[in-house]
């Protein structure tokens, strides 16, 4: 029987070295005894043998965690797994394998214990020995995880000296980390910040919600003895029903006298008078609830440009980007419109640009919003604002982009294809030139897109001629 003794610290590396050597001789797991206090076996580890030994990164990660488990069998289990891995590389990836399952559970238990140590170590301030502040803590983990858990503290608390004492040993940090054998539990001094912490713990608690099961499963009772705040829990729970009852008994209170004055100062009643100019119309529209689109959309997207322009361009409705930015024609279709306008010699600052419907309509799909065409009722509700805009701008010509704008302006719902490029009468009598919506061009591909883009550019050029005439 071969016996392998492992040191107090650096055990995983020691196991790894010994295991590699044993496996290179294909020593059977039943012929090795690991770190058992010296009751059995006395043969030394043989020198490196001829057989190649391989282990995947996944296995090494698993083994590193299992090595910090308190189960005395862990070393033998790991060696058994390593030996099996030499013939059957796949078994460690099969969750249905009993050994994979057992090692997986052990690793999970260790990871959880490490996580809880990161959570529940509580430092007390110690008298400083030099310019750096000094802190100390006592912690009792379930597994021997001191070495595995300390890198976290090294990264987090690099600018202070600290020690964490555990039954397994003590980690000390003063810029570099060292490990000492176990010593008596240190006497940690009183720390005023712990009193403040208890104040916080007691007051962040809501007595009207009692869910002790959730608390116990995440903060297991075995860790409570070293946590300053858990001493308060019994009293907090005992007090809770009385506090809730007191809230009930007190009922609604009378507001202090100044409250009404404060709210009266900041609560502006919405202005519902007939808007007299474009700005006040825009302000009113920002609160519009005429149809249901406002509940899902971010905000009203009002028109933009010159309110005294000879040309008004009307699109369908804001899209995703317009909705987020609160500005019309800033998304992909809007950018295409701006490029084409530039080519046609139309200055966007000398046009009033708006949409037939002022809120984005969409269906949510995970992290994306899929554009929807507004329906007749939404278009009709929003016509109130479009008519107001037309009243203020009084354009010589209106360019309707797409079927929605064409319908909103002319009241005519027939297909757009035969009507495109022609001038129709708006409901209020003004001339309306009909063209494609730029988003249509973006949806088409190849020759059809090029053809539609050509027509779109022609229509914009025609609009320019019409307002110049």
């Amino acid at each position, binding site marked *: 029987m071969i016996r392998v003794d492992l040191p107090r610290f650096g055990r995983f590396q020691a196991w790894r070295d010994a295991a590699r050597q044993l496996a290179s001789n294909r020593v059977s797991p039943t012929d090795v005894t690991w770190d058992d206090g010296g009751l059995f076996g006395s043969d030394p580890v043989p020198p490196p043998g001829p057989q190649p030994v391989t282990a995947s990164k996944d296995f090494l990660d698993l083994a590193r965690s299992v090595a910090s488990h308190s189960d005395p069998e862990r070393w033998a289990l790991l060696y058994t797994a390593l030996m099996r891995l030499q013939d059957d590389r796949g078994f460690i990836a099969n969750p249905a394998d009993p050994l994979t399952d057992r090692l997986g559970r052990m690793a999970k238990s260790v990871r959880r214990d490490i996580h809880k140590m990161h959570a529940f170590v509580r430092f007390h301030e110690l008298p400083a020995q030099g310019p750096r502040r000094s802190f100390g803590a006592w912690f009792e983990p379930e597994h021997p995880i001191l070495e595995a858990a300390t890198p976290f503290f090294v990264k987090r608390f690099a600018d202070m000296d600290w020690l964490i004492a555990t039954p397994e040993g003590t980690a000390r940090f003063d810029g570099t980390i060292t490990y000492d054998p176990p010593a008596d539990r240190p006497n940690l001094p009183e720390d005023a910040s712990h009193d*403040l912490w208890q104040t916080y713990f007691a007051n962040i*608690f809501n007595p009207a919600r009692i*869910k002790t099961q959730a608390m116990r499963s995440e903060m297991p009772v075995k860790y409570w003895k070293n946590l300053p705040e858990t001493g308060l829990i019994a009293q907090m729970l005992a007090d809770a029903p009385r506090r809730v009852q007191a*809230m009930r008994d007190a009922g609604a*209170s009378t507001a202090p006298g100044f409250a009404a004055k404060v709210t009266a100062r900041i609560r502006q009643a919405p202005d519902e008078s007939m808007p007299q100019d474009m700005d006040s119309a825009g302000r009113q529209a920002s*609160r519009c609830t005429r149809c249901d689109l406002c509940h899902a959309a971010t905000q009203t997207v009002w028109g933009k440009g010159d309110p005294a322009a000879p040309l008004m361009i009307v699109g369908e409705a804001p899209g995703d980007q317009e*909705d987020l930015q609160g500005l019309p024609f800033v998304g992909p279709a809007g950018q295409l419109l701006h490029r084409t306008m530039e080519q046609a010699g139309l200055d966007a600052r000398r046009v009033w640009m708006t949409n037939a419907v002022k809120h984005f309509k969409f269906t*949510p799909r995970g992290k994306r919003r899929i554009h929807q065409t507004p329906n007749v009722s939404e278009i009709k509700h929003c016509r109130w604002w479009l008519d107001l805009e037309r009243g203020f701008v009084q354009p010589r010509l209106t360019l309707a982009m797409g079927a929605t704008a064409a319908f909103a302006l002319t009241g005519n719902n027939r297909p757009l294809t035969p009507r495109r490029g022609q001038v129709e009468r708006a409901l209020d009598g003004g001339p309306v030139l009909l063209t494609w919506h730029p988003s249509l061009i973006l949806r088409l591909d190849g020759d059809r897109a090029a053809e539609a883009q050509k027509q779109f550019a022609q229509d914009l050029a025609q609009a320019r001629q019409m307002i110049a005439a």
Partner: protein
Amino acid sequence: MAQRTLQQKLAILSDAAKYDASCASSGTTRRDSRSGGIGSAGGSGICHAYTPDGRCISLLKILMTNFCIYDCAYCINRVSSNVERARFSPEEVVTLTLEFYRRNMIEGLFLSSGIIRSPDQTMGDMVRIARMLRVDHGFKGYIHLKTIPDASPELVAEAGLYADRLSVNIELPQDASIRELAPEKRPETIRAAMADVRLGREAAKEKTHTGRRAARFAPAGQSTQMIIGADATTDRDILKTSANLYSGYDLKRVYYSAFSPIPDSSAILPLVKPPLIREHRLYQADWLMRFYGFEADEIGAAHPSGNLDLSIDPKLAWALANRAHFPVEVARATKEMLLRVPGFGTKTVQRILAARRNGPVRYADLLRMGAIMSKARAFVTLPDWHPGALTDSASLRARFAPPPEQLQLL
């Protein structure tokens, strides 16, 4: 009024902050103190303690002040409440954060505030605290700032440079409820603030024309909170609102907070027991939307009332209402369909996909892999298991739901 001690202020201003459910501290950029300063972040956050209300303490969650000029009926800090008021100085917030942090009690700071004088004034003070922590003290821990909806975009932009997470609370699931219960707030302004955070995050991800990375902006994303049970909105509509928010603003989380009686309550809201089970079911449904491929409408349609079944979980409720899809053959089913089997979580499904490449998956294997077979058995077929008539049996729901309470004869 006598000067309050730090301890008294802490008591008042943590009590005032407890109704905000969020405490997440995960998913931000990786950084630590080995290159200077104090603290570390990145990866999954740590819950340093739990209170008996079942909520974790990960961050120092406090209000800068609980003075407020708004009058939101559900809020303990509204102007018409007689609650005790206090105000931290920025230095006090910084000191508390750092001293708790050095003792390993917290992951960082979650700072919120009542609105004092003006939204810009309030937001400006909060940004100053974050700047002191980051710049003056080299704090590398986590900072979550509650954005004040009406604050100027410049302040929000600066907040995004220091904070890991920004959040704006939608407060209530329907616009009409916000207008009624929080008359100083406007739903469109709240959503516009969320849109600004999304746009700020997207802009920070794009490289500048010189190829340099823009400054990071709220790398842990944004979240929001909705109060449940203060108005009459159905769960179906709540989930639809959540789906809209997730799709529109790239939210990490929507937090649901069961409306809880507050001391010094407003007469227009009932002092009822907080609907904790409903809150739990909504979180489950929210998970189904984000990780299991369910749509809000599918979940909401499982019960004609539009509310979730409180006695069984929403996935089971969906499966019971859609039995034609079951039983599912575990050996062949798509990942999407496996995710819809009650009792299978995302991890179990991953394990099933890995295990079935290695050979047949049997009943005992599923148990070992973490499947809750008491739920799943009625909905799956395996080489050694067939549910027979169980899937369509009329009494299937009764096997999962707790029996109705027997009425006592007087």
